[in-house]
């Protein structure tokens, strides 16, 4: 017998990285919120790599933090080792990556959910979803019924999950949890077409069985840099990682057994990501490569499990043991958990608006792997936006749509809802055309005022932000005014950096503009320099050095914004607009873009089609 278990404003299905941000945001914005997890010990689990951040992903974490999300703070609290990647390759591609203590991260997030006002955390498998006049009814495996106004689906790899290891395959969620076996059918009945995607993870091995003596070490930065603008002191790095390589022998074993891979045997129908290939994929697709790199990373301080980054596989367990043992350092490795591939259900994200609400189902949102993305950070970013929008809708406020020109989160969502995903979508710096202005160092400048407006930034945090901006402005003024006279001290510095010496006085800002000269270089001659946060110097220096590029990109953003501001209706049938080419009519009807700007990014919509839309829009506007 079904029973009524309660009424909530927002319900979140799944308590992974997307679900957590969604639930916390909705609850913090004052909505009565419930979050369901299939297994209470799997909240905020990291079933793949024990790390947060990385290229472009580090940008996402900083942006989540700047908007008032949780991922950055928790990653700082649980960090084991932190590195700023790509130093020396330019500020646009600097990215923070932290090894984290996997269990501690999960416990910390669970505790934050438990302590959050307006939020209830339940262990329950959602098996059914029904639309009502005022929202949705969710049913659990235990036949509890929840009446809710808005639902955020963040089911990760649990939805219809199936694990593949060689010839063996079985229904399962990640890390040996139960899958969500019934919700998929209910979503199909509701009218949401689902499709299968695939991902995978490498083995975990016992630390004491690894011979580290000949392996290259990888250390963290000193001092480590935090993700969160809230974190004052991180403490020191706690672990080191190691690097090893596969060899000809590894390749030989894999090729001999390739027919036993479920992917090559045709058992897996799901589409896997090109950028996260299993080792067997790498060996088959890049057969000319003699060796592949792997990183050995600790999973935590209270465990001896080690993660083998780069060594994902779905070959049979016995083959895995054989090929892992060919790798230097792993000759006697004890495999604690085998590598596996997992296939799961997800939706076509073009079914959604940039608010992450389904176009055809009001009050229904999706986030994370369910939307066709891949990665903890991509999931958390969408969870935050879905949670904020569910709450804003319930409060009767305007939705939050992040511009693609203003953040990686906006770029991620725009790509998903405009272009769709044919494979799990991973964030990359190359996906943003505005990457010189969307940097990890200035995420606060770009998004914290917005987070404040939404209501996720505390008074204290906002005051701190404003203070920092004031100091930054002052510093900019100071370097514009300060003149350095020519002299031996400055000229020695300049010449040692292979740039021309001064013959007349120069302003500090002019010296800083030289690509070869950094803030630190000028310290000895910069007598009036104040004590400031390192991030302030970083931002000032980048803004000075890249001024020309930044201004150019800002002009492009202005152009784009004009098109983004030309709004298109959501209910128009484009087949009625005869001037459009057939392909454009079909694509526009599928995507229902919210603006001319979005329409122009749809493949299959030509500049001529955009012109037709402009004419039509203008004649419509004048009619009124």
């Amino acid at each position, binding site marked *: 017998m079904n029973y009524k278990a309660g009424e909530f404003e927002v319900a979140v299905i799944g308590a992974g990285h997307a679900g957590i941000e969604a639930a916390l945001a909705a609850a913090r914005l004052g909505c009565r919120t419930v979050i369901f997890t299939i297994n209470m010990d799997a909240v905020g689990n990291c079933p793949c790599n024990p790390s947060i951040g990385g290229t472009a992903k580090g940008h996402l974490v900083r942006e989540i933090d700047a908007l008032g999300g949780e991922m950055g703070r928790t990653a700082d609290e649980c960090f084991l080792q932190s590195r700023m990647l790509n130093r020396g390759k330019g500020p646009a591609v600097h990215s923070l990556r932290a090894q984290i203590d996997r269990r501690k991260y999960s416990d910390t997030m669970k505790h934050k959910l438990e302590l959050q006002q307006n939020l209830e955390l339940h262990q329950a498998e959602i098996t059914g979803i029904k639309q009502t006049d005022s929202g949705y009814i969710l049913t659990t495996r235990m036949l509890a019924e929840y009446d809710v106004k808005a639902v955020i689906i963040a089911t990760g790899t649990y939805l219809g999950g199936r694990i593949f290891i060689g010839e063996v395959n079985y229904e399962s969620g990640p890390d040996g949890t139960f899958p969500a076996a019934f919700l998929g059918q209910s979503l199909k009945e509701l009218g949401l077409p689902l499709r299968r995607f695939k991902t995978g993870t490498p083995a975990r091995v016992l630390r004491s069985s690894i011979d580290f003596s000949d392996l290259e070490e990888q250390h963290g930065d000193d001092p480590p840099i935090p993700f969160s603008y809230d974190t004052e002191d991180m403490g020191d790095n706690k672990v080191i990682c190691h690097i090893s390589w596969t060899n000809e022998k590894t390749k030989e074993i894999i090729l001999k057994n390739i027919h036993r891979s479920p992917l090559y045997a045709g058992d897996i129908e799901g589409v896997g990501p090109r950028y996260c290939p299993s080792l067997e994929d790498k060996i088959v697709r890049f057969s000319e490569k003699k060796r592949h790199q792997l990183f050995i990373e600790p999973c935590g301080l209270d465990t001896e499990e080690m993660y083998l980054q*780069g060594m994902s596989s779905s070959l049979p367990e016995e083959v895995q043991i054989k090929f892992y043992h060919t790798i230097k350092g792993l000759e006697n490795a004890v495999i604690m958990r085998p590598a596996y591939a997992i296939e799961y259900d997800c939706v076509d994200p073009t079914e959604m608006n940039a608010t992450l609400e389904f176009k055809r189902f009001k009050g229904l949102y999706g986030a994370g792997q369910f939307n066709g993305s891949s990665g903890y950070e991509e999931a958390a970013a969408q969870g935050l936006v879905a949670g904020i929008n569910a709450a804003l809708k319930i409060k009767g406020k305007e939705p939050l749509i992040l511009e693609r020109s203003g953040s990686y989160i906006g770029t991620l969502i725009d790509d998903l809802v405009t272009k769709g995903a044919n494979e799990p979508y991973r964030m*990359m710096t*190359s996906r943003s055309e505005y990457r010189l202005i969307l940097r990890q160092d200035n995420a606060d400048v770009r998004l914290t005022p917005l987070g404040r407006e939404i209501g996720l930034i505390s008074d204290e945090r906002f005051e701190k932000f404003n203070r920092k901006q004031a100091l930054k402005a002052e510093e900019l003024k100071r370097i514009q005014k300060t003149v350095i006279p020519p002299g031996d001290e400055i000229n020695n510095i300049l010449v040692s950096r292979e740039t021309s010496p001064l013959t007349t006085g120069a302003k500090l800002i002019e010296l800083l503009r030289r690509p070869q000269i950094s803030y630190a270089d000028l310290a000895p001659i910069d007598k009036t320099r104040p004590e400031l946060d390192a991030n302030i110097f970083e931002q000032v220096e980048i803004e000075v050095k890249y001024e020309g590029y930044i201004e150019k*990109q800002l002009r492009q953003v202005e152009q784009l914004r004009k098109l983004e501001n030309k709004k298109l209706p959501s209910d128009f049938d484009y087949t009625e607009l005869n*001037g459009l080419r057939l392909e454009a009519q079909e694509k526009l009807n599928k995507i229902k873009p919210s603006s001319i700007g979005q329409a122009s990014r749809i493949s299959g919509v030509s500049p001529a089609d955009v*012109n037709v839309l402009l004419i039509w829009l203008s004649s419509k506007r004048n009619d009124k």
Partner: protein
Amino acid sequence: MNNTAIAAISTAQGEGGIGVIRISGDNSFAIADKVFESISGKTLSSMKGYTAAFGYIKNNNEKVDEAIATVFRAPHSYTGENVVELSCHGGLFITREVLRLVLENGAQPAQAGEFTKRAFLNGKLDLTEAEAVIDIISAKSRAAARAAILAKDGALWKKITSIKSKLISTAAHLSAWADYPDEDIEEVSEDSLSLTLSECIAELNALLSTFDKGQTIKEGIDTVIAGKPNTGKSTLMNLLTGKNRSIVTDIPGTTRDVIEETVLVGDIILRLSDTAGIRETGDAVEKIGVDIAKNRVNTCGLILAVFDSSKPLEDDDKALLDSIGQTPAVAIINKTDLESVIDEEFIKAKTKNVVKISAKNGEGYDDLVKIITEIAGTDNFNASEGILSNERQRLAVLKARDSLDETLAALSAGMTFDAVNVGIEEAIESILELTGERVSDVVVDNVFHNFCVGK
């Protein structure tokens, strides 16, 4: 609204001795003043609306042609913007030279139907005309698309594509190197990057200097005579040219390649191609001819589709009627000298311009001339599209070259590679604008295709 000046040749080909280049936009007077010098010494910027000046077109200080410039001041012009019309001596060479000068001095090549679009958006056309405006834009953009396809067959486009590929793989290498710092990806060195950029700049410069030699724009409307074998295409060609150029026999499949002739039909210049008959064929040599013919039907400016009235319609005929699609076309029911068994109503239902002739004895020739003149005179028929698409390619090459020049300078000055890559992508974008692809998509695809990256 975006009011950057746009320009195009606004007279149809083959229409008398005057060619008009129209410039419209905020800065059109300033641009026109750079290429036009009046005899009186007055600048166009200082002239009143609805006035004209006699003078000459100059390339720096070299005289190109005598011309009359007519000034229209916003909002009293066709588009509602500042407009200059430069009337020079007709002929494709001169008009294209003048257009190029105008583009080099800051105007953009007009997109299909853009003058009409601006007129509408500036309130010069009635709201009830919105639908008509949309029709014009669609029709013109189809003509533009055909011209662009044609241009892509050229040797020039192949060179542009090869430089584009080189730039994309360089950008992809930089992206993979930045996005996958933990992977075993070859370091990008400043020297090799600087070498690649210099090479691309040199190739783009070579391309710019040979631009006109590579692609000769022929005068006249690119016209294809199409139809299944033995419907009398070659006889029609002979009728139009008045010369015995194609080999005419009764065996289907005699004309195996494309034969071109330029003829004056009424006031209109046509560049005629007689193609191999379109039909499914097993003969290899003939098949090549048939493929060329099919391709031509999709890219030409005008189709003369020939049907044999003495035989019932076959599948090949119906397929031809369907494949005409959006290209301006005349359906010619040939052999009126023989007894007619063809289903004329079927043809009339598929296409609006139908004419009955006997190519053999010349009956119906005047009707054909009349209908061709009508089509060439309609607003939808954009005769200068071929030139514009050529000019767009040239401008894209120019912009790409400028971006790379800047990027190379930044690299030598010691700028970081993230900024350098933005410059390379800007150059790629200029070229991709011709095809509508997006830079980030092609670069990301290339990264996954060429680099073994992932966890």
